């Protein structure tokens, strides 16, 4: 008889696998995210040119633009994790069959992997197209991973909330912006330091603290969101 803990892990893994299997077959969210990211990248490049050659712009402006692109991409693709379940009425079956915490962790893992995957595509493209040289690439990777996680966990949690209401996609942006704003600004600072070659400073622990707090808040609050 498998232990409750191993069943829980298997449940979370089942949700993760199912989401990816469905996603790879329909490619809806992947297309949406990739399209948004590439379009915004193209617009940025067309508007600013290879701005990375200008040192002031490289440090003050380009890190912020990168994170705006990632924010748009996240808003385009991550809400689907819950909105799609509600709209296609598969949420009913999930409510009855899935332990809420395992469901949340599974969806979170899906969102994080999706966003990190997009970052792996967008970040190198961005650096190349904008001619941006990064003094501490290792620090940039840390910023992208820790910041990307924060973006994903905030988005998935807010997506769960927004999926219970009408006007879900616009509502998502309204709800998510205030919640994600601190994360974005801290991540931008961390990225800026990586570009300039400055030490990460206090931004990294703050970012990790945000990630941890929102994850714990999500785990505690999700059952109340999901079930009456």
């Amino acid at each position, binding site marked *: 008889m498998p232990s409750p803990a191993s069943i829980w892990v298997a449940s979370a893994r089942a949700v993760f696998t199912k989401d990816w299997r469905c996603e790879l077959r329909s490619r809806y969210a992947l297309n949406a995210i990739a399209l948004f990211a590439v379009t915004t990248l193209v617009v940025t490049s067309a508007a600013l040119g290879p701005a990375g050659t200008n040192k002031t712009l490289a440090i*003050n402006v380009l890190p912020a633009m990168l994170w705006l692109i990632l924010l748009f991409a996240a808003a385009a693709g991550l809400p689907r994790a819950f909105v799609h379940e509600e709209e296609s009425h598969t949420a009913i079956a999930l409510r009855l069959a899935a332990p809420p915490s395992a469901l949340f962790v599974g969806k979170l893992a899906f969102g994080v992997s999706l966003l990190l995957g997009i970052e792996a595509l967008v970040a190198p493209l961005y650096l190349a197209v904008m001619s941006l040289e990064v003094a501490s690439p290792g620090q940039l990777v840390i910023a992208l991973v820790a910041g990307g996680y924060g973006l994903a966990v905030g988005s998935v*949690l*807010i997506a769960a*909330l927004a999926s*219970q*209401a*009408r*006007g879900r996609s616009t*509502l998502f942006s*309204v*709800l998510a*912006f*205030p*919640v994600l*704003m*601190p*994360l974005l*600004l*801290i991540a931008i*600072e961390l990225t800026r330091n990586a570009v300039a070659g400055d030490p990460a400073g*206090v931004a990294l622990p*703050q970012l990790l*603290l*945000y990630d941890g*707090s*929102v994850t714990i*808040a999500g785990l505690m*609050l999700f059952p*109340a*969101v999901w079930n*009456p």
Partner: protein
Amino acid sequence: MTRTISLGLRFGLWLVMAGCIWGAFFYAWSDPAFIGQSSRILFFHVPMAWTSFVAYFAAAVWSARYLWGGRRMRHDRAAAAAVECGVLFGVLATITGSLWARIEWGAYWNWDPRQTSIVVVLLFYGAYLALRSAMADREIRARISSVYALIALVVTPFFYFIVPRITESLHPEPVINAERKLDVDPRMFQVLIASALTYTVLFFWMHNLRARSQALVDATLDDPS
């Protein structure tokens, strides 16, 4: 509460409010450190801002009570009423604050720590109200908006981390917050405290009215007879 007592309390509140206004303009001195009579705005601005923060925390507390205190609609009505009244105080605080900032520092907006925090509160208030208006079913509305209020509370402290970043990038020297100076003069201190208490009482009175009127609406929907 009988009608007479209620009438008496309301009359008392009007009197105290009038007293605060008188005190702000005639009893307290105008702080010479500030331009002209402009420091008098602070007797109203600071309590308004303070009250909107009180409303913010009250909404979060009532949301928590709703979620973990038996799912009583009373608590959800209280949380929503706190936000609705809090918006009023927050908007007024922002307007009075930026007017004063224009006089004192030459610019309506500086992303000074206090200014940032009131914007954050208003952003979350707006999002909360937008969320509520998007859900027709009251049980779902109560549950989801309570969760959002708590998420807002978790995330709000992080804004204090980011404030130095904003001010550093736009202004090399952070703007000094001069409000601390008010604590020095006893008359000004008295009026400020009196005003803060009065505003708080005013808020809770408005909140009480709002919550009770919503309760009546809910009651008629439950039992139209």
